[in-house]
């Protein structure tokens, strides 16, 4: 018999507490994910959830302190809960007031590659009329620099943007000159396949702190099959280009993105190994988008959400294994979601924003002067659907573009916080609205979430990442590191 009575002898059988707003969604048969207003999560069983709601949860219950610490309830000792939630919520949404940090300039639609799934519906290299003119570029730059965001990233896209490198030089120098009086933080990125890179281009990039973002789909055979070009040497040119670019710019100035085709699905380990071999410190495992040639050639329909999830989970499991062996290597899609789950910061990733990232997160200036709400909006327009065209750089003012009904209507209608099912979903703080994808697939900005592949894929990813963290302290620590990169 103990000399002392337990703490419960000195406390009321049930604590007097007030519930704070939260949402819950099942994790498995008996476990639930609870998220508070700021997106912090906690796992509890059904008994705890029901007792919590009925105000029957004892203050000695093992879950009580966690529920109080993460603002699911407040009692006499935690009256500051609502104020802290407000602060965290404000931090999460601070980007809204400083909108549009990313500006994509499609300097040409021409490309010397002929990728069957290409998301930009490329035109052939010798078709000269698909390049942006200096007059159009200058007017687009005016609009970009009008954005409230203090941090302006200008990304040059194509086609293959290096086919119009003269215009890139003009835009970079103009932006730097005009920014003298604005004092914004300017950053430049060229999204290129590197096939046409040379030392003159690299020297210009070095002198103007331009980042290089390239495409690497995996080992030689897979990359070359995905990205056919005259000579069949896309892989060789990319690898040589990465090496030269790193030599001139520095390793941290060159990044790579991969596209998952059907041929990639059984080869996730080989793809990750290729990134490790090439000296990258992470990989972005991302699904094919339903736009441009991807949908025209049925590449998008070649695999569904379930097959992509298998690919993704195998990939993340392998990346975790590499880290367990002592390698520092990250998966960037997970890192974006984990930042939302484990910090009060929002990474501002356009596909996972609500209000949607269109217009607010990014604006696209097409080669012909049309302005679109996102890169995907432009691809949709290439398919004949101009639902998200906001205006033209030569004929519309900034105010007209940013308040276009083609932007405001989808933003309002797709807002997840008030969308059926999303409104009650515990994963809503981690998810996005993506009205362009839903419009492309279902013909309206919202879609029916129970039938949406976007919803199914994201819900499973959130559950998978939470299960991984909750079942393995090593993974929890690793994910914390990714979240705080």
């Amino acid at each position, binding site marked *: 018999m103990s000399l002392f009575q337990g703490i419960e002898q000195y406390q009321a059988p049930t604590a007097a507490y*007030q*519930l*704070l*707003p*939260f*949402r*819950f969604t*099942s994790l498995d048969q008996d476990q639930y994910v609870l998220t508070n*207003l700021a997106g912090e999560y906690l796992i509890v069983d059904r008994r705890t*959830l*029901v007792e919590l*709601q009925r105000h029957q949860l004892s203050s000695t219950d093992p879950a009580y302190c966690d529920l109080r610490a993460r603002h699911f309830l407040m009692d006499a000792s935690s009256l500051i809960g*609502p*104020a802290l*939630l*407000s*602060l965290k*919520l*404000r931090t999460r*949404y*601070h980007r*809204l*007031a400083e909108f549009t940090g990313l500006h994509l300039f499609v300097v040409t639609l021409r490309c010397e590659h002929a990728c069957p799934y290409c998301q930009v519906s490329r035109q052939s290299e010798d078709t000269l009329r698909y390049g942006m003119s200096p007059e159009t570029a200058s007017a687009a730059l005016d609009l970009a620099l009008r954005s409230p965001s203090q941090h302006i990233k200008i990304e040059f896209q194509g086609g293959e943007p290096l086919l119009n490198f003269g215009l890139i030089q003009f835009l970079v120098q103009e932006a730097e000159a005009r920014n003298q009086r604005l004092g914004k933080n300017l950053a430049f990125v060229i999204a290129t396949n590197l096939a046409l890179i040379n030392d003159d281009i690299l020297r210009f990039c070095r002198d103007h702190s331009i980042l290089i973002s390239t495409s690497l789909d995996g080992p030689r055979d897979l990359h070359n099959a995905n990205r056919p070009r005259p000579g069949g040497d896309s892989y060789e040119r990319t690898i040589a280009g990465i090496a030269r670019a790193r030599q001139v710019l520095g390793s941290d100035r060159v990044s790579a993105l991969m596209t998952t085709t059907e041929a990639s699905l059984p080869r996730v380990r080989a793809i990750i190994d290729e990134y490790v071999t090439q000296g990258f410190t992470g990989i972005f495992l991302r699904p094919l988008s339903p736009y441009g040639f991807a949908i025209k050639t049925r590449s998008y329909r070649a695999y569904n959400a379930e097959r992509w999830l298998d690919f993704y989970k195998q990939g993340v499991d392998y990346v975790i294994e590499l880290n367990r062996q002592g390698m520092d290597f990250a998966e960037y899609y997970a890192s974006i979601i984990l930042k939302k789950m484990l910090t009060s910061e929002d990474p501002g990733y356009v596909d996972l924003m609500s209000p949607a990232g269109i217009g607010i997160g990014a604006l696209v200036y097409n080669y012909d002067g049309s302005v679109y709400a996102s890169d995907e909006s432009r691809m949709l327009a290439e398919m004949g659907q101009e639902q998200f065209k906001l205006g033209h750089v030569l004929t519309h003012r900034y105010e007209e573009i940013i308040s276009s009904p083609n932007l405001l209507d989808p933003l309002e209608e797709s807002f997840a916080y008030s969308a*059926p*099912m999303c409104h*009650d979903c515990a994963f809503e703080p981690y998810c996005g609205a993506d009205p362009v994808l839903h419009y492309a697939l279902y013909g309206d900005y919202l879609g*029916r979430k*129970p*039938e949406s592949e976007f919803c199914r894929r994201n819900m499973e990813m959130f559950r998978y990442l939470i299960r991984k963290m909750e079942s393995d302290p090593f993974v929890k620590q690793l994910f914390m590191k990714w979240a705080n990169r």
Partner: protein
Amino acid sequence: MKDLDKPTKSLATTFDSKVFTLIAIKKAAYKYIRVFSADITMQGEQINCQLTFSSPVSEEEGGRLVEDFKKEVLDQDLRERLKAETEAVRNVILAHAFSKTGLITDESLSGD
């Protein structure tokens, strides 16, 4: 003995309106829209749900889906209660969070 493999296209279930709200049942039905459509009618204090499956299911599978639907109604009912209880504090938190960001306007100042 019942034939559990016999395919069925439609099953019915009922809820007591004194216990469950209509909104909780509608939300649960929405979540299952991929699996079945629901005809929801009121009869006195009873809420009747006729569930028509997108494709025929065995009686055993149908029974399991009805059970899952009932559990979902319970969850939705719990959500409704939580929402009602925390609405006031949620509004205070949201108002406080956005009070100095310029993202909301003071209606008392902008109103006529």
